């Protein structure tokens, strides 16, 4: 069991999401960087599919009355154990009974993932334990953690080893790679030049439903578009010309023209964008994007 002494900005129970429910209007959701949560799970001795916490910008203080085995991956947060020792990232941590883990602000990036040996025990709804805030279901009562919450742990963990993970390298300043979108023909040359030549700032209203960008307006022929299916990474252009990159909990259909789509390989970078960050875009061909391998987390024993 874990006691939440102080909640962070938005601590959400997440696993690998609920694929295949788009026809019900339910997006896949799940961890914004599924590979990072899967790596944390492996470090904690769990299956990759176990539920953990996704922690955004400002973390919680958690107490482990009976101790526990945990691991953190993703953005590094200022974090200390009750002993005063700084919390290590990307390795198996063994906590003594009664120990607390105090996570403060993200030092770089936006999100980290905490896995706990046994996994968080939450109900499976539509095949997943992930919190889906827009409709208020999944995870812990469909909401973010609050002070006073108690999180039950599962019992399904395997053998315990002390492990260390090496995250895949990422070029934070590189352009986000996109494939031209289904309505690219609706955009005039000036609109496309603005989008592909411009730098955009991530807005404060961004969340798991979408990243709202501000920058050069992407102009397009006004058209009454029918609703179309969309997926995370799709870059929608509303009438004001300011792009929205759909996120993990975004709607499954939308009526705004889609100028481009961020390739799957760059979704983990979307997970680490925070308000104020600047992004730019570069196109690649769909076939080239398909060939981009999933980033590999290397996990081995702590020597």
């Amino acid at each position: 069991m874990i006691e939440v002494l102080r909640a962070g900005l938005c601590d959400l129970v997440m696993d690998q999401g609920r694929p295949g429910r788009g026809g019900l209007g339910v997006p896949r959701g799940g961890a914004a960087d599924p590979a990072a949560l899967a790596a944390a799970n492996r470090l904690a001795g769990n299956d990759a599919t176990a539920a953990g916490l996704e922690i955004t910008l400002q973390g919680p203080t958690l107490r482990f009355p009976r101790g526990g085995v945990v691991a953190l991956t993703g953005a590094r947060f200022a974090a200390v154990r009750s002993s005063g020792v700084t919390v290590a990232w990307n390795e198996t941590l063994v906590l003594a009974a009664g120990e607390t883990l105090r996570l403060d602000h993200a030092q770089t990036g936006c999100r980290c993932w905490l896995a706990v040996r046994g996994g968080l025990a939450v109900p499976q709804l539509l095949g997943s334990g992930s919190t889906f805030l827009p409709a208020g279901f999944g995870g812990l009562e469909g909401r973010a953690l609050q002070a006073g919450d108690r999180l039950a742990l599962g019992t399904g963990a395997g053998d315990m080893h002390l492990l260390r993970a090496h995250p895949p390298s990422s070029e934070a300043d590189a352009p986000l790679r996109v494939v031209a979108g289904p309505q690219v023909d609706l955009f005039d040359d000036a609109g496309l030049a603005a989008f592909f030549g411009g730098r955009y700032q991530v807005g404060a209203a961004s969340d798991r439903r979408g990243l709202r960008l501000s920058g050069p307006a992407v102009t397009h022929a006004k058209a009454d578009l029918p609703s179309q299916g969309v997926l995370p990474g799709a870059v929608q252009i509303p009438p004001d010309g300011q792009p929205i990159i759909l996120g993990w909990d975004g709607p499954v259909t939308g009526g705004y023209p889609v100028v481009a789509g961020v390739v799957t390989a760059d979704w983990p970078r979307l997970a680490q964008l925070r308000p104020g960050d600047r992004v730019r875009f570069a196109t690649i061909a769909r076939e080239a994007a398909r060939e981009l391998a999933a980033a590999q987390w290397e996990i081995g024993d702590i020597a």
Partner: protein
Amino acid sequence: MGKYTRGQSHVHPAWRWVSDRGLRVPTGEATLACYGTLVSQDFPEVEDIIPADDSLLLVLRRGECVSAELAAMLTSPPADAPVSSGRLLEIAVEYGGRAGPDLPVVADLAGIDPAAYIKRHSDADYKVAFLGFQPGFPYLRGLPDVLRTPRRASPRVRVAAGSVAVGGVYTGIYPAAGPGGWHIIGRTAAVLFDPQRDAPALMKPGDRVRFVPQ
């Protein structure tokens, strides 16, 4: 994936990519037939299928291509595929008043009185085209032309769960409370979405729907 050819995509020129994994296929009148066939045939390269207005979005599994078999089905959907589930759902609605604050507005736009609007709305036979916007939100086709309404100039910050609404060519029902841009004409006690149910969404594409005034 042995029987499927990797590294070779069978993509029709009219299909459009939405990132590396989403493929928008214009399916027109055959949208529900293609959707039903895809759901029943379980193509291994497909992670998800999202029906919408005259198109389908196929979400491919990472690294996958469109197989020749899938491409063939999408270019010539089976003529005998069912386009209706055969189910008819009757939805009891309290029209107007606090349950449907925009009824006078849309009746005015249609040039008829609210009672006539209710009669036209509840006499029509609807079909679920697709679910979107929120889990379980049905986009119902079959709204009489005269009842078609543009969306509200400014969306409501909060629409009650069960609100029956009209937007453009569609009528629909908000499963959960939240912001909404359609005109609200009534409310139903029917639970459109419940993740705890075996079938979480009350309606599915192809269902027929009628509204019954209370």
